[in-house]
């Protein structure tokens, strides 16, 4: 039985897993880099082990150190979270070789589905529709050009080892291809250490919809409905919801069963996500499998009432699922906003700094999965995700209004954040009607509309600034006066002593 878990991650997801451990009376051990010595995941853990270093490569990606610590700490299992080592099949293998439970799918299943090219082959074999394109990474530029002519533009270039939209490039026309290919390869190399690229048809107006699955070690596989993840910036998700405004019960069943069939075929266990695109005609295409917990898992938890992290731990411990497909009922609507340290007024550039003020929302229908506290620093070393806000409503519009309310309470001072962007989306009529696709940011978003249009607030800002300015000046004058006072006294003392 799992009594102690090593969490090989940081930030909000490490905190999320610690909380699940607490509720299951499991001891939580964590690892940390030098800058993370006082990070929230360390503060909340039961045990903490230094990795040294600061960059991901020096710390959270160091398989050797993590395995050594797991042995020393005598943990029963390792939870990799998302990112870092979570989808690395050789790490999963090494963990299992050390007779420690890897909280995730078997290495073979990661290998079979984690690589996009391999996963597409499986899907093709099972006759699950895929996006037209290559099943193999293409090495030579001339081959890319030849294929492009077959499929037709626009094209999408994707890193074979990528994920979360990293290393993706759209190529609109032939004359952009050569340059785009170079950048995509360079990014893929720097992000994943693997510059292989593959090429596919770019689906226009696609919605990104994914199916959450759970598979236990007794052969039960279920799907937990879908997540709509079309609101993306830089090809990365920033707002997600469940259910999707375009998925009805019939489509949910077809996609859910396709996802189940896919993971079953490779002996998959634990949690996983099968990503699809849905085009303007409601046709879906298999995209890839994320063989791990997703960032956006809370929206599924919120509507189904099923705790995915606890289920991951139970499955890894050999416990069968306590519910069947028919027992999974989605209730109401959930939305998530990712609160990232980025500047939406400046192309979502990362924003670093110290959190001078950091107040997270509270109250009804709000869940905040958060990895930082006031006074903490946001460094350039890791992912800019600070927190996720999840709201629930009995209807989609109630969830949206709850999110508007929650974000109005979220106070961050010290770094820029995606909050104004999320507020823009929540106020946008098309979004509120459910009409959007993955091109939403390119087509709808105007950073000049981010600034709030509230004249009374601006007047209040002006007056408060004047009053604070005067206060600072008065204090400075008082200090000067005191200094003069000291000087005078000192002069007087000299006079007294020596005259």
């Amino acid at each position, binding site marked *: 039985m799992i009594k102690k878990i090593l969490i090989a991650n940081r930030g909000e997801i490490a905190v999320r897993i610690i909380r699940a451990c607490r509720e299951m009376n499991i001891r939580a051990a964590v690892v940390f880099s030098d800058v993370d010595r006082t990070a929230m995941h360390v503060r909340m853990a039961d045990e903490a082990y230094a990795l040294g270093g600061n960059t*991901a490569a020096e710390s959270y990606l160091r398989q050797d150190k993590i395995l050594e610590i797991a042995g020393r700490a005598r943990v029963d299992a390792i939870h990799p979270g998302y990112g870092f080592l979570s989808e690395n099949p050789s790490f999963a293998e090494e963990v299992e070789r050390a007779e420690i439970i890897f909280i995730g799918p078997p290495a073979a299943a990661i290998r079979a589905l984690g690589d996009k090219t391999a996963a597409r082959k499986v899907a093709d074999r099972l006759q699950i529709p895929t996006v037209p394109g290559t099943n193999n990474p293409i090495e030579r530029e001339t081959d890319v050009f030849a294929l492009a002519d077959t499929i037709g533009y626009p094209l999408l270039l994707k890193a074979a080892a990528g994920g979360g939209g*990293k290393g993706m490039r759209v190529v609109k026309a032939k004359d952009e291809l050569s340059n785009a290919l170079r*950048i995509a390869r*360079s*990014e893929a190399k*720097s*992000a994943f250490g693997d510059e292989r690229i593959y090429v596919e048809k770019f689906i226009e107006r696609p919605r990104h919809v994914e199916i959450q699955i759970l598979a236990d070690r007794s052969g039960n596989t279920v799907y937990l409905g879908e997540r709509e993840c079309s609101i993306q910036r*830089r090809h990365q998700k920033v707002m997600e919801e469940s259910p999707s405004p375009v998925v009805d019960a019939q489509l949910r069943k077809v996609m859910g069963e396709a996802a189940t069939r896919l993971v079953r075929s490779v002996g998959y266990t634990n949690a996983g996500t099968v990503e699809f695109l849905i085009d303007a005609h409601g046709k879906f295409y298999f995209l890839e499998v994320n063989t791990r917990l997703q960032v956006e898992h809370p929206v599924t938890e919120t509507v189904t009432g099923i705790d995915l992290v606890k289920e991951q731990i139970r499955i890894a411990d050999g416990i069968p699922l306590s519910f069947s497909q028919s027992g999974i009922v989605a209730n109401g609507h959930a939305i998530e906003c990712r609160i990232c340290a980025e*500047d939406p007024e*400046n*192309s979502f*550039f*990362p*924003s*670093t*700094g110290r959190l*001078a*003020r950091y107040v997270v929302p509270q109250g009804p229908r709000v869940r905040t999965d958060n990895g930082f506290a006031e006074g903490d620093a946001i460094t*350039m*070393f*890791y*992912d*800019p995700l600070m927190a996720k806000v999840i709201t629930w409503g009995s209807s989609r519009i109630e969830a949206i209004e709850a999110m508007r309310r929650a*974000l*109005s*309470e*979220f*106070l961050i*001072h*010290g770094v820029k954040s995606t*909050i*104004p962007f999320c507020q823009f989306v929540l106020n946008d009529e098309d979004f509120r009607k459910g009409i959007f696709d993955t091109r939403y940011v390119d087509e709808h978003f105007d950073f000049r509309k981010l*600034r*709030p249009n*509230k*004249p*009374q*607030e*601006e*007047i*209040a*800002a*002006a*007056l*408060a*600034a*004047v*009053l*604070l*300015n*005067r206060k600072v*000046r008065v204090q400075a004058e008082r200090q000067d006066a005191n200094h003069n006072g000291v000087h005078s006294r000192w002069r007087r003392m000299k006079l007294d002593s020596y005259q």
Partner: protein
Amino acid sequence: MAKDETGFIPMNPNQYLASFGTSVYTVTLLDDNRARIDDEIYLFDLAETGQGQVSLKLNDAVFEISAIQHEDDSEDHLLHVRVNGNLYDGRVEDHQALLKRNALQRGQRSTSDQTVRAPMPGKVLRIEVSAGDPVAAGSGLIVLEAMKMENEIKSMIAGSVKTILVDAGRAVEKGEPLIVIEPG
């Protein structure tokens, strides 16, 4: 509310110019709880909370406010003011500050060269322009790598590249000047 601020210098030490976005407010503190803002008189009450914020009553409306000085922009004393969670950037100038600014502006040629700064710490991957190159507003200048992403920094104005201050491969700090663009 937007006014032409050029050359206007309040003669009253309790008078201030507060510039927020495109608006410039003339704020006169009449006494401890009354202020004239442009042409209107407001009753106000500023109370400090236990959390280092202030609660500002403006007539009957109430606002939760926190303000910090912009860290990496010390040259122009930009204030970040959060009102009910919304961000307002601006600055306040009193009598003395305005006198000083006026003197400065008379003393030196007003240059509007734009210095492009690093919006985050990172590594310079590529420099996409050379000194003297013409640039359009929105055209790419330099590519920074940070947080595992490539970030292309674009010119905010049309003009030409005056100076390039960094080399490819160099690590830069947040706010560090990268390139100077001469408008035109």
